[in-house]
């Protein structure tokens, strides 16, 4: 498993790290009422296994479109997405479902828990889709809930939990099939400072201890303290990529220059 050491000699280290997601000339345009809107205008990026990368950018910058592309939720107009050297465009519907189920975990800004399922059922649903036996799914689900500190609330429904707890259940759910990549779409945006901090700590722990690759869209500056790399998107292009060490973080502002 690739280790996450301080970024002293990043360039040389990157050479022998395994690439988990690679995009080549990624472009996406939508035709809306006769007007061609370009959401992505050519993005090339390589994301390494075990990396914690933050994606930043103003709204409308193409951040969400980029996320959909690398999450195998949408197909690009031009260019390719490789997830572990597998071209997503080549997969059938069943294989795509398998990919989403086993290889990618999604964490949403609005948690997106299934409202009528208990915490445990929410966590075990992806396992059921993946064909795991109910008994095993149950014990694994309890283990994951324990990991996010919600073991004693397994029978609660989303409506009976706070935002932070819901997001923790969502994290447990995203981990249910041991994914290689965790895609987080502003996971702390709907949470207060304290609970947001808890979520970030869980993510960091997953990254460090389990070696899960985490790609995180965020506006939260605390994210910069824990991520390995930062990526800025502007107008559908990669504006800048920087290692954490190169970015100065000050309370109240960010200055990357």
């Amino acid at each position: 498993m690739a280790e996450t050491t301080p970024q002293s000699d990043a360039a040389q280290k990157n050479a022998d790290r395994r690439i988990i997601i690679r995009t080549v000339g990624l472009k996406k345009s939508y035709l809306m009422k006769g007007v061609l809107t370009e959401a992505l205008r050519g993005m090339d990026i390589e994301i390494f296994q075990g990396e914690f990368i933050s994606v930043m950018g103003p709204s409308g910058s193409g951040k969400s479109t980029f996320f959909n592309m690398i999450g195998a939720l949408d197909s690009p107009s031009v260019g390719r997405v490789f997830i572990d050297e597998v071209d997503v465009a080549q997969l059938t519907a069943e294989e795509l479902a398998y990919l989403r189920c086993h290889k990618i975990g999604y964490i949403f800004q609005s948690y997106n828990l299934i409202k009528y399922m208990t915490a445990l059922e929410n966590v075990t649903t992806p396992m059921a889709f993946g064909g795991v036996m109910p008994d095993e799914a149950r014990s694994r689900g309890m283990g994951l809930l324990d990991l996010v500190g919600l073991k004693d609330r397994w029978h609660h429904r989303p409506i009976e939990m706070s935002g932070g707890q819901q997001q923790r259940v969502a994290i447990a759910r995203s981990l249910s099939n041991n994914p290689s990549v965790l895609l987080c779409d502003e996971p702390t945006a709907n949470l207060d400072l304290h609970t947001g901090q808890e979520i970030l700590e869980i993510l960091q722990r997953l990254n460090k201890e389990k070696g899960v690759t985490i790609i995180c869209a965020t506006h939260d500056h605390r994210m910069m303290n824990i991520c390995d790399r930062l990526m800025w998107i502007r107008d559908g292009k990669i504006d800048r990529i920087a290692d954490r060490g190169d970015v100065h973080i000050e309370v109240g502002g960010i200055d990357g220059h």
Partner: protein
Amino acid sequence: MKSINIADQPWLSMRRTISITVDGIRYRLFRASVTVAVIVVAVAFLMNILAESLIKRSVASNTRERIDTSRVIYNWSAKLSSPGSQESIIIEVANCSPDSDLYRETQRFAAMNDDDMAAFQTHAQKIVFVFDFFNSLDYAKRRAMIHTASGLEILNRLRTPENMEQFKLALSRIRSVHFDMSFDELDAVLAKGPEIRKQVKTIITARRNAIAVINKTLKGKTILEKLATANGPFGDTIRQAGFIFDADQTAPLVADQAQRLLDILALEESMEERPTRQLIAQQANILPADVNVMMMWKYLDGKRFATRYLEKMQEGGLKTEGLTPDRLVDLAQGRKENAALLRAERLTLDAGKGVLGLGERLGWLLFVSMLVCGIGITNAMMMAVTERFNEIATLKCLGALDGFIMIMFVLESCFMGIVGGVIGSILGGVIGLGRMLAAFGVNFLGAIPIGDILVGMLMSVLLGTILAAVAAVLPSFKAARLAPMKAMRVE
């Protein structure tokens, strides 16, 4: 090291699919119950009409049977006093089965062997077919084809070539009318006409002679009074005259009904007398002049009144032989049953034909109501899909196959269809049963086709379920095709 190798996503087990679907319905119970209500109303409507049609049809045949039995006496008193017309004999022969008394009796009167009689019946049936065809036409069409001819005149008229031409011409012009008999066959029937007529005339003569034998034994009594003794020597007289009059079955029935008619006549005459009329007036608290026969029958239903009525009859010097209070009550109730039979016959005149006893109009009405219900379900499911965009997209992100999403919604609709179908069919069946019982009265309880109604209920449930499933296909398809990236969107 986690390596990625892609395989096909397995299908979710049916049990888990059902449990997820049921949980989903439970969570949205209110919306689901509104959809179920739509199905309940539609299926109840279907089942109600089905139950009423089935009951009506069954009651109609039951009524016809009972009325036929109760009219045996009229048939016999008519038969023993007049030989009948040519048309009536042809129709009689055409409609009777070869092992009936009437068939054998006619054969005896016509002095025919078995083959001749069978041929005679076949021709009679063809003639009746022609009669029925012209009787089913409205006046204008009938006039265009055969002018004003009716009965056997029709055959006479068609035998002349120019009239036949007129008929064929009219038939070719009036497109809505179909004559289901070839012209060759019609010609054969027409050619046979004189022979048939001769045979019918033989039958009429034989019958007239037989009636003359019976008339000799009447000796001033009416045929009804004589028939009341049909169990005795008069029965033998009838048999000797050449009629087939079964001593074990027909004779007791005829005698009983004749006696009943005589008693009814005697009672209705007795009401004209002073003491009895006063008794009824007293009971009804009106003037004796206002008393009518309906009141008598109404009060005779009670045994106490019947006893007193009989006493008054004796007081007035009327003949009361063979009459007891129980007999009076029995007669009154018989009249009541008769009235119920007549009412049932009237109410079941519109009983439909076909497998389910539905007419064409009702079938159309049902079709439209089912269509409306289907559209209602589609709309409800559409709303449910729209409402659950986020959930569906999330499930797809978690690895759900399109097929699972589709099955989830079709199943949901099916469950609602089953629940709505069961409630609706019970509701519709009970309402239909209640309405029919209210219309016909409890003495038709035996005529209710329980088995048919149960089959109808099963069919209604099935139809409701299929309807719900079909109505859900389009919304489910829409849900299954939803892009999973919708889950990323913040509400």
